[in-house]
């Protein structure tokens, strides 16, 4: 006759990283958002390929702001990665500094990007290129803002002492999302800024 017993093996509850369901859910989110950018870039390319006259109108966009801004965003990912690794391996007592520095760098990226927008000689409804430019970079900017929101929420939770467990699942999810936002920027940057450059 069977009876209720306790298994010999210790199993984690909910787990973190790949053991958790949240990690896989985040990958699904990244997949569907990633393909959204693929469709945006496809549309941009399609409009460009079918365009009559110059594409982009008025020649390739300047790299003066965009290139340093790219390094700024990539740098923020590196800061976050180093900070969280140090926290996970108990070399840092709190993830808070890394979160705040990353968010500050992300915030600076947003400001530079807004400056870049205001420098443009065209507006959203000027022509197809303008629509596509503002939509593609605008989608990315919205994702940066979502990432910033996530970083700040994580910072609050960390300050409240709710992320003490190492490794922490919320931190892992925020980290995946922020890296995703940065990697997508490389694709957007390549599409908008690098492809049109003439050697």
């Amino acid at each position, binding site marked *: 006759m069977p009876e209720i017993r306790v*298994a010999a093996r210790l199993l984690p509850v909910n787990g973190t990283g790949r053991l958790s369901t949240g990690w896989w*859910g985040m990958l699904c989110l990244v997949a*569907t958002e990633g*393909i959204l950018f693929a469709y945006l870039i496809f549309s941009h390319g399609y409009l460009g390929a079918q365009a009559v*006259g110059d594409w982009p109108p008025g020649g390739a966009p300047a790299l003066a702001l965009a290139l340093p801004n790219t390094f700024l965003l990539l740098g923020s990912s590196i800061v976050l990665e180093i900070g969280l690794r140090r926290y996970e391996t108990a070399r840092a007592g709190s993830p808070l500094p890394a979160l705040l520095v990353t968010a500050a760098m992300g915030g600076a990226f947003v400001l530079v990007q807004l400056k870049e927008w205001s420098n443009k000689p065209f507006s*959203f409804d000027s022509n197809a290129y303008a629509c596509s430019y503002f939509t593609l970079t605008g989608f990315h900017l919205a994702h940066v803002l979502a990432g910033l929101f996530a970083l700040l*929420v994580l910072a609050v939770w960390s300050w409240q002492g709710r992320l003490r*467990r190492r490794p922490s699942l919320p931190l892992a999810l925020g980290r995946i999302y922020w890296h995703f936002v940065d990697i997508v920027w490389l694709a957007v940057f390549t599409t908008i800024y690098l492809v049109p450059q003439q050697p």
Partner: protein
Amino acid sequence: MATIARNRLPDQEREKLRATWETAPGVYGWFATVDHKQIGIRYLVTSIVFLLIGGVEALVMRVQLAQPGMKLLAPEQYDQLFSLHGVTMIFLYALPVLSGFSNYLWPLMLGSRDMAFPRVNALSYWLYLLSGVFLYVGVPLGQAPNGGWFNYVPYTSREYDPGINIDIYALGLIFLGISTAVGSANFVVTLLRTRAPGMSINRMPILVWGTVTASAANLLAVPSVSLACLMLWLDRSFGAHFFEVSGHGQPLLWQHLFWAFGHPWVYALVLPAMGIVSDALPVFCRRPLVGYTAVALATVTTMVIGFGVWVHHMFATGLPAMAISFFSAASIIIAIPSAIAVFSWLATIWTGQPVFRTPFLFFAGFVILFVIGGVSGFMTASAALDWQLTDTYFVVAHLHYVLLGINLFPVVGGIYYWFPKMTGRMMGERLGRWSFWTMFIGFNIAFFPMHVVGLEGMPRRVYTYPADLGLGGWNLLISVGAFLFAAGILLFLVNLVLSLSRGAPAGPNPWDAPTLEWATSSPPPPHNFDIIPIVASRHPLWEDRLEEVEERSQLDRGYLLDVGRETIGTTPMDAEPNVILRMPGDSLLPLGLALCVTLLFLGLLAHAWVIAGLGLAGALGVLVAWLAPAPPVEAQKARIYA
């Protein structure tokens, strides 16, 4: 089944599990439930309500078209009706009904206690319901979507269609897309993480293969149409030029984005339904499915090729010959995996001992309709023939054979098959046969002649036609068939309602079926399984009589997990247990988030930016509460019954 009765869990333990997993009673529980069985049934009921609405719209159109020159509907009314009919059937019925089956059945088939994300499951339902209502908000104003379900620009640009009709369509589809995306992510993660121990991927039911394939495809395809709709809304609201020629936009970009989504979507509408047949048909043939591996692989292959066929909707748009050749070839090749599935079903019937119960009739009828719809699809895959047939009723015939034949017939058969599990009662057999034959004959009278009128040159998407086309007789026959078909659906619904109270008690496994959902009581308790099964084969309940199976699944001993709402998490490929998943209970967060999103979309529709902003802020607030970190739980030794 003897194996279940032998070692029942003590009643006291059973009650403890039931109390832990039961949804709270009353209004709160109704809005807060996260039980996949309740959500699944809601999906089914809601989508069938939309089926009826879409069906009535079709019948009104068939009255209008029954004779040449009829004046029942004005052209504008007809435009709205045929657009709503398409949108309703394709977006609000055909996929959600399959989500209903999968939501209800997956955890039962997979030997688990709920989906991976129970609250996301509730969220996807509420978003579906509210976006469905959203798509209908224009009806009382006489401003429903009127550009067809395909919604081609420039007909739908602000210049030619200035009302809010198309804005409702564009925003509504983005709204519904959120529901589809979160629901699909839930299926994918559920598949990867919550299968019963031992259910390696070569032991999953084909329905699971079909739904996970469709879900992965949805994650990759839905953003395309959401983006297209957003661009259209920007064109219409803010003077953008994505599709508008004078600003160097490209009308064809809409068609590319729409069909790059649309064609994978069509496969998402049929693959889970084909999975229903692949799992249930063998039960009525008293043998396992012939060619399980081939069918599973064909399912995935169909979807992969399905991403490379979208241009066959655009053969007549003047694309380069090279592009047309490529997509024509891909559209022809996709017949191969479909044929693999068809021959598997035929071989299953041929080598089995068919039991001609109502579900069998629907599944066998489905095979016939699938072949007819498949052949007409194969014909139009050839660009040369497509140029003759495009925009005629031949295409209408084809798409109804595939969508109704491959979606609705398996769905109705599937309801006959799983109704006993959901309600504990059998559906009436006599009325069941009547409903099948009425539907099957009505369907063929309604849709087969459309091939003929199409070949005779009758264009589709017209509100009437002249008498000298000479097609009045055929059209009258089509309309009569449509009403006969509708009568068949009505018989099915009458049977459904009567059987709810009068059906014979079903018991756990009335069809003597092999899969796990039949190992628990009918209807299942809130926790699905007293003990989480350990799976050793594809047919856990048929092992004693299948000679090739040596191992035995364990249904009456294994993980008990009775400390709170718990189920077991397993590795993605081999389903080895590696984590205890503590599941959330009743929650109002999903409904709250769905309402905030609704507010956001209503604000966008009305250009009321403050309301939209409030909706967005509310949604973010709910998300933060939703994702708030739970206090850490230490590793445990799982409680087992052995």
